[in-house]
């Protein structure tokens, strides 16, 4: 099977910058430019920009839009003010995860924007349409029409003000957005991200996104690839669909129960989550800190001291900001309390570690 890779609206600019490119979610995406460590540090200490145009933008509207989104989404959108954003999941009836996503409550009543993972756009849209039969809603997948960049880091606000001409950025609160009109088209600026730092995501037509990218490059903002996107989100304790959330990993197992409002009248997967909460789950996601510099990678076994396997690593790195070997692992629930000694088998050797909080890095969101 040889499906040609899609390209984002910034593809030629990445190639021009000498990025190392690699397939991701059907797109030919930049993995790194100057190097993962350099880019990671730029986001932690200054500002970097990511091309995230591959992400999906699905617009839901219509008389039943609120009740429909609330039915397919674990978080409760009813109290949302226009211009606010909520994180949560779409679940299967058995509690497994379809996707994790952001819901933007638009300024126009009964309009919502769902921002979903690139790898799940087709699956999500099929799922949404299937669930929508009894609802009077319009589901409009505009993923191909929108470019998106994420400007992340302590100097992100300055970059939006001084380089991109968005002085209003200072007034946008965390997990809120504003609409702008530029070049005759709609631009959405939200104070969101996937790095553990302050930052913004900008959604617009490809031509405007290209202009923004160029201005950021001219202003010295570091281009950042998917390589450091993963190291940054990992340190900040954020899950990646496919690793920490899957059709087999529910939000309760992943420790994301706070984004599932079981006091809502109904949503798909609610009964399953209630049962998981009352009966307990067989496995839970934990953080593990190793004493050694060896790197735990996805798929490596997690063991007890006597060699009994009790889990598996889902993501692991030698953390760039914390300079420790850390991982997320899905582990039998009996061994998930903070401070529990666990061991990770790395090639031929076993390295001792301890269960720690998944948010390894103290996030610096602007609340």
């Amino acid at each position, binding site marked *: 099977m040889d499906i040609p890779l899609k390209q984002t609206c910034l593809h030629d600019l990445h190639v021009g910058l000498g990025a*190392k490119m690699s397939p991701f979610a059907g797109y030919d995406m930049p*993995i*790194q430019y100057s*190097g*993962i*460590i350099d880019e*990671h540090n730029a986001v932690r200490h200054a500002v970097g920009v990511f091309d995230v145009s591959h992400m999906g933008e699905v617009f839901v509207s219509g008389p039943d839009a609120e009740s429909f989104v609330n039915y397919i989404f674990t978080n409760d959108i009813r109290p949302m003010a226009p211009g606010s954003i909520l994180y949560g999941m779409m679940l299967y009836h058995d509690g497994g995860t379809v996707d994790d996503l952001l819901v933007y409550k638009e300024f126009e009543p009964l309009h919502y924007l769902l921002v979903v993972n690139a790898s799940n756009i087709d699956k999500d849209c099929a799922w949404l349409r299937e669930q929508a039969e009894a609802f009077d809603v319009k589901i409009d997948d505009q993923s191909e029409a929108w470019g998106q960049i994420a400007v992340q880091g302590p100097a992100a606000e300055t970059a939006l003000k001084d380089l991109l001409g968005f002085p209003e950025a200072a007034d946008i609160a965390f997990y809120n957005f504003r609409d702008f009109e530029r070049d005759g088209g709609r631009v959405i600026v939200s104070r969101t991200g996937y790095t553990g730092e302050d930052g913004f995501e900008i959604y617009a037509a490809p031509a405007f996104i290209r202009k923004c990218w160029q201005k950021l490059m001219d202003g010295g903002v570091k281009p950042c690839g998917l*390589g450091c996107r993963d*190291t940054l989100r990992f340190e900040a304790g954020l899950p990646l669909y496919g690793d920490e959330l899957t059709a087999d990993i529910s939000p309760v197992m992943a420790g994301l129960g706070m984004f599932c409002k079981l006091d809502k009248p109904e949503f798909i997967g609610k009964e399953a989550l209630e049962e998981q909460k009352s009966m307990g789950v067989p496995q839970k996601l934990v953080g593990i800190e190793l004493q050694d*510099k*060896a*790197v735990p*990678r996805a798929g490596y076994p997690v063991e007890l001291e006597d060699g009994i396997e009790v889990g598996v690593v889902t993501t692991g*790195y*030698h953390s*760039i900001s914390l300079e420790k070997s850390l991982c997320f692992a899905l582990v039998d629930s009996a061994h998930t309390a903070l401070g529990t000694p666990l061991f990770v088998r*790395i*090639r031929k050797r076993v390295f001792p570690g301890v269960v720690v909080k998944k948010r390894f890095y103290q996030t610096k969101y602007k609340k």
Partner: protein
Amino acid sequence: MSKIAEGLLYSESHEWVRVDGNVAIIGVSDFAQAEMGDITYVDMPDVDDEVAAGEDFGALESVKTSSELISPVSGRVVARNDELEDKPELINEDAYEAWIIKVEMSDKGELDRLMNAAAYANIAG
């Protein structure tokens, strides 16, 4: 285009060997370090460990991936480059200077299976 040092022998898995009498000094090629990116950890055997040709003797870790180190020869480890414990980036800086282990060879005939610089240039583009 990666650098290929003359006078060394190379394996298909991108290790190099500098022969010093009965001792094989082993590292990885410039091509290998460039493919890996920033190297963050070198997993090395201990002195006196036995290594076997074609089998792994450790690994390089970068931020994103790990890559096994395959021994080009068989024998006993007589030295390891402990400087790499704190400075794994030395491999990125000069892959031919930053040797990893020295092996007292049990069968020098195994060297015949390795490539010279010209032959290695064909696979490390």
